């Protein structure tokens, strides 16, 4: 294969994927935009979601995500640091934890749904609540986040570690000021993958955060997530397709916003750590 053919191949693949994506997105916009309006965003759903808006569902979605992130970020970062910095390559404990994380990443969401229902809702007594939903999602996205963060940390060259050691920094300080900022792009990428999967999750949330489409008053309330709403409108409520497409568009915009936020946050973190330390 010549260099030129390779270039064409790469461009071709990139074009193929983006055109499939544009096809999908175009379809969503085509069907969804007629239903989209300001009042759609700020009013309550009516007639099982066919009419009215999605305000309570948006609030529930954001709350569920927030609960999941509050649980995942510290736990996941800690685990990733331990795996990347404190285990020997090929060591038994590290390998077995990595393996169980990889398996956990492959546990189907429907199984998480049943697990979350039995563990958080019934066993811990949280009931159908935003909290149960968020914690179930946290279990789901934890392995993705840990493995990508670990890969990011592992990719930081050893020279940086040696440099930090030579300066007499503690390992904690080296981690906080050098290694984590250096791995920030990978950590953010992992977080985005996780958020993407969490916001897109349907099965696990029907059984945990529930079906109630009222405005949640606390984290102990049941609240319907956007993806559950879309699923219900397309698969269970006849005549709900228009509102479903519009909700899908809103969901996509939400994800873009979160991604942009995460990217700029990681940029700022990177520059701040490096300049002030």
């Amino acid at each position: 294969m010549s260099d030129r053919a390779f270039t064409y191949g790469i461009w071709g693949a990139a074009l193929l994927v983006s055109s499939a994506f544009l096809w999908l997105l175009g379809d969503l916009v085509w069907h969804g935009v007629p239903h989209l309006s300001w009042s759609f965003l700020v009013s309550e759903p009516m007639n099982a979601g066919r009419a009215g808006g999605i305000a309570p569902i948006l609030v529930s979605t954001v709350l569920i995500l927030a609960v999941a992130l509050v649980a995942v970020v510290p736990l996941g970062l800690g685990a990733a640091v331990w795996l990347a910095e404190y285990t020997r390559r090929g060591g038994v404990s590290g390998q077995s934890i990595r393996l169980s994380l990889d398996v956990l990443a492959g546990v189907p969401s429907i199984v998480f749904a049943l697990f979350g229902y039995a563990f958080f809702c019934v066993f811990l007594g949280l009931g159908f609540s935003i909290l149960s939903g968020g914690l179930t999602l946290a279990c789901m996205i934890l392995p993705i986040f840990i493995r990508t963060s670990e890969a990011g940390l592992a990719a930081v060259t050893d020279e940086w570690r040696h440099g930090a050691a030579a300066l007499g920094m503690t390992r904690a300080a080296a981690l906080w000021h050098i290694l984590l900022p250096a791995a920030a792009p990978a950590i953010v990428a992992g977080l985005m993958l996780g958020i993407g999967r969490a916001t897109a999750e349907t099965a696990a949330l029907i059984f945990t955060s529930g079906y109630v489409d009222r405005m949640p008053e606390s984290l102990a309330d049941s609240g319907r997530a956007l993806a559950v709403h879309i699923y219900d409108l397309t698969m269970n409520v006849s005549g709900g397709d228009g509102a479903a497409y519009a909700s899908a568009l809103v969901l996509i915009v939400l994800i873009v916003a979160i991604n942009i936020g995460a990217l700029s946050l990681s940029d700022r973190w990177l520059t701040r750590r490096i300049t002030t330390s």
Partner: protein
Amino acid sequence: MTVNFWKYMASLAVLLLLACGARAENHKLVLTGSSTVAPLLLEIGKRFEKQNPGVRVDVQSGGSSRGVADARSGLADIGMISRALKPDENDLVAHSIAIDGIGIILHRGNPISSLSDEQIKAIYTGQITRWKELGGKDTRITVVNKAEGRSTLDLFLHHFALKNSEIKAQVVIGDNPQGIKTVAGNPGAISYVSIGAAEYEAAQGTPIKLLPMAGVAATVANVRAGRFPLSRPLNLVTKGEVTVLAQRFIEFARSGAVHDLVENQFLVPLAR
């Protein structure tokens, strides 16, 4: 960094405590069960809340068997099921709130306008595989069946005296809208779905049509009059003593005050 960890952990613990502390259940009804019934009860619940300030009605979807299980265990005050109670469920009491008719649908472009019970049976058991054999186009028949355990499947099998293992399906679906979308996208498909939903979709321009069964047109009017051969009741189920609030809610859900809501979900209110 450790400080931040503990900050996070502490806030997590606070969240958990908040959640446990904030549960007041005096004026709360929990309903769980059938996904077919859930959207209707959601709307009935909202109207009930409006008329009874301070009351909360939480509706959770998840299937008829969950409705039965949760009503039995007390996890839910009221269960929702999209079928009649089975003989081994006579510890529960059923309260019918609506009826749902099940009709055969084809793609609108299919020239076939009626099928006898024998023909439907032959199609579903794989003895007839092309529309040509029934006077239609020379295309393959795509048989759409429901997944195991669905009450519409039970009803269908019972009506045609079939066993599910005898059916040779090309597509197996879950809920009604999936069946309607599948038939709308495949000119050779045949399926059976809720009549109200199919009538609505056909009126909206979705390319499907309902076939009469045993000479009775598949219309909501015929289901309401009890003339249509394939229909099922939608029930609320309770176990033992019922609270005053639950009793009031069941009466409300069975009353004429919610008939418009029942019709909005393309279901058939009980005849009065």
